[in-house]
């Protein structure tokens, strides 16, 4: 294993340049190659269905959403409100101390205006995803633009959609409020909140 065998001579440099471009492997196909029978291919549509256990934290979060409420959990050690809620603080690595009610208002920390669907089709009415920190009822305060601790915003929040008449008027730091589905239509899902809208 230690001595050089005859296979292991000092290599001559084989660089990317000495391997000329036309020797690099990689043949580009065009869409029409598939349509005209120029290439063989096999099509499969896997049927993969999952029913994920929500567990305690998300289970309760969704149950409360159905009631038209946002809740979080609280870690007394790092003094963070955890939203989305979890049963343990991931920074302190301990069980959380209690469940806390939250408001359904918050602050936009960033947003985008998306004109493309998940499969790259263009749409006329853009979606506006945003990261929103949710206001707490009791201290500590929810995120404002400048509060960034090693654990991020003390208040926590999540990604959701924003609806606004003119997206060009939207700004980071705008305050928003959840617009809920009517009670009868809520089923315990993040979409029980239809979207957030800007409030003064």
């Amino acid at each position, binding site marked *: 294993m230690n001595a050089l065998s005859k296979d292991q001579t000092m290599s001559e440099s084989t660089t990317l340049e000495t391997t000329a471009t036309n020797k690099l492997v990689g043949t580009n196909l065009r869409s029409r190659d598939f349509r005209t029978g120029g290439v063989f291919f*096999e099509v*499969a549509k*896997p*049927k*993969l*269905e*999952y*029913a*994920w*256990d*929500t*567990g*305690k*934290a*998300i289970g309760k979060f969704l149950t409360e959403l159905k009631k038209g409420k946002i809740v979080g959990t609280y870690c007394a050690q790092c003094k963070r409100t955890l939203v989305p809620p*979890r*049963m*343990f603080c*991931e*920074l302190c*690595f301990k069980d959380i101390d209690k469940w806390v009610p939250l408001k359904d208002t918050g602050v936009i920390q960033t947003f985008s205006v998306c004109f493309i669907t998940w499969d790259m089709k263009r749409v006329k009415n853009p979606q506006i995803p945003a990261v929103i920190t949710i206001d707490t009822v009791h201290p500590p305060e929810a995120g404002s633009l400048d509060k960034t601790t090693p654990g991020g915003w003390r208040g926590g929040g999540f990604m959701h959609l924003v609806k606004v008449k003119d997206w060009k008027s939207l700004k980071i730091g705008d305050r928003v409020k959840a617009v809920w589905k009517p009670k009868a239509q809520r089923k315990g899902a993040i979409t029980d909140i239809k979207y957030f809208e800007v409030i003064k």
Partner: protein
Amino acid sequence: MRKVAIIGIGATKAKAKTPSVSYKELTYEAAKLAYKDAHIGHQEIDSFVTLAEDFNEGTAIFDEYTPDQLGAVLKPMQTICHDGLVGIANAYMQIASGLFDIVVVESHSKISNIKNKASLEHYALDPNWVAPLNMPAQTLAALEANCYAQSLSVNGQLKEALRSVVTKNKSNAKKNPYAAYPQTVTSKEYEKSPSRFTPLKDIEIAHHADGACVVVLASEDRIQKSNGSSPVWILGAGWSTETSEIGSKDWTRATYAKNAATMAYKMAQISDPKKEIDFCEIDDTYAFKELQHLEALGACQPGEAWKLTLDEVTQPNGKHPVNVSGGSLGMGELLEAKGLYQVLEIVSQLRGQAGKRQLAHARRGLAFAWRGVPTTSGACLILGAN
């Protein structure tokens, strides 16, 4: 090379379903137990390794959701798509390289959340050459079982040996508080068990279970500074893949197992495994696999494992106990966490903490796990009390 040991391990009881907890909560429970067992705080851990596959979870790039439930935020953390034993081998290499002192390995199964497992298994088949045949993936195991049977000189005794493996492992599971499928298997039950993929009977196939297991490893010098539970040393590790091409693989002798074990024995400086290994946890996803793997690992000559079994050598009170934990047949098929549950048993035995399952001579244990159909990948780990 730097010496490395397991200083803590924690696991949840394997269960057919775990509806009250998410995978994060399940893993957190195992991690809490492991860190308590190791007498460490999460901040002391240098690096983390998860064993997982995207489609088992139903999430693309599952790696991104792994740190929180281990207390690994902003730490070195990675996912390897292999059995837990390879995770432990990686933790070993990370520590032996001098880069880290304490490394944690995690794996879990939440397979109860997959609604159509057969579809999932099928999706692992070669998309051009095998999948279009529309046969269930487990057919490959059935075909191999036939090849294995035909390779033996005395066919008739194989069936009895298979029944003995099933009975032994499910019975062993009755003494294992972590096992999901403890059972006293009667002759009648065995005979009546329907054929799933001939010649594989349903009772010979491990049923899936949920569970999470977390293992804490540390370097020798780090161990000397602490006062945790007695360390269990990594003596040898090996892993090997033959090929994914079913036309080229070994259909009889589990070459992947032989190669993985050879590597592990070399590292552990073991020349006669029959003498130097006291007990083992060997992959029994299908009952015939326990026999085939035993041979490949060198416990006996090829084709002789049925004798070993019928002579009761592999019983808990035998000369060479195999799957005292219950194996996958008794504990449940736990996906990538399988090897970690094997290690759980070995560590319990080596520490003298195995309760009703405690073996009298437990100083060196071997774990061997296979990744299941359609793979030819396996990993081997040898652990010792000193």
